[in-house]
């Protein structure tokens, strides 16, 4: 067939119309879509406007050498153990007082005598979290109840969040975490992580959803860890904060940490 210019233009025009029809038909037909409306929040879950934790170190120091909270977290979240400190994964851990509150360790202040005491550390779940701002994939995000959470499915391992966090609360999986775990004793209700993602404390969102307190809070026999809603005037954390003098780490940075410390 010999097509002249006019026929060619007609055929080309019809082709374009034909191609544009397919997406329209698809859109009108609706296709098979997974409904997202038929899901509900779990009943019996613990909810709050803003979750916070008060660490009463005066109680914690009564039983020096106790690692119940750390062990409970380790079990609940399948946290691997590596000998090499560079590969260490930390959700809840301790450091010496003067490292945690350098401004409180001056020679002449009352808290100076606390130097050398272990302070329990975990993610501060800042109200104004710098890690969330820098995450390029929104793998780290803040829930409406204030919990700063990791979506490990989205983490690309860029570690911007680790640079942004002024509290060193984040750990990177340099090694396959399953090599540092006994998988046969792993908690099946919580996934392990994979090599190349960042992880940190999640305030036990999976336990809150079942109506349980965080694993570390449940494990502490001295009741040194108090967890609750700071926006609720009748909550235990709020009452404690109103009654006692408390510290937060690096308040001058304006991240508004939601882990408070009572040290005297």
């Amino acid at each position, binding site marked *: 067939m010999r097509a002249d210019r006019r026929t060619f233009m007609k055929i080309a025009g019809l082709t374009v119309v034909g191609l544009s029809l397919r997406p329209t038909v698809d859109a009108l037909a609706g296709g098979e879509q*997974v409904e997202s409306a038929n*899901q509900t*929040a779990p009943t019996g879950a613990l909810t709050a406007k803003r979750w916070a934790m008060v660490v009463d170190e005066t109680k914690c120091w009564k039983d020096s050498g106790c690692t119940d909270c750390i062990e409970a977290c380790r079990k609940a979240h399948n946290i691997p153990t590596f000998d090499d400190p560079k590969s260490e994964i930390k959700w809840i851990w301790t450091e010496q007082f003067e490292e945690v509150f350098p401004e409180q360790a001056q020679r002449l202040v009352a808290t100076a005598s606390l130097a050398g005491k272990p302070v329990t550390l975990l993610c501060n779940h800042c109200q104004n979290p710098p890690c969330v701002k820098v995450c390029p994939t929104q793998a780290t995000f803040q*829930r409406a109840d204030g919990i700063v959470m990791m979506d490990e499915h989205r983490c690309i391992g860029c570690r911007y969040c680790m640079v942004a966090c002024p509290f060193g609360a984040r750990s990177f999986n340099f090694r396959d975490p399953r090599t540092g775990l006994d998988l046969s004793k792993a908690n099946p209700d919580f*996934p392990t*992580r*994979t090599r190349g993602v960042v992880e940190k404390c999640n305030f036990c969102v999976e336990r809150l959803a079942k109506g349980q307190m965080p694993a570390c809070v449940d494990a502490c026999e001295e009741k040194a860890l108090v967890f609750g809603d700071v926006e609720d005037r009748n909550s235990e954390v709020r009452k404690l904060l109103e009654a006692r003098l408390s510290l937060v780490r690096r308040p001058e940075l304006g991240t508004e940490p939601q882990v408070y410390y009572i040290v005297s």
Partner: protein
Amino acid sequence: MYDGGKIIPGLVVFVALALAPMLLGATLGQGATKPQLTLPADEKSCIESTDYMRANHMQLLVAWRDQVVRDGQRTYVASDGKEYEMSLTGTCIQQCHTKKSEFCDRCHDYASVSLNCWSCHVVPEEQKG
């Protein structure tokens, strides 16, 4: 054509060799064995119809993942009104498909689909044995 006597038989041999796998497969072969799935013994149906699950289980799981992790919604209401916890290990694996290697893996191996679900999500039964 120069060297036609070599080129044409050469082409015939090449085409025959190139088509040999297909021709042999079509005439003598038995085809790939369809994956044999071990279905749960005490459950008659999945959370949605079999056809729906076969076609859409991956989208369903992705929707579950986003609902649970990002929105904190943990209960799935199926189209028949039954409620399930949205949990790959807790619901799919522990309650029904206890042998991942005889359900998930058989089909995915057949279709040559490689997943990364299991690099994090735990399969409790199979760790032991």
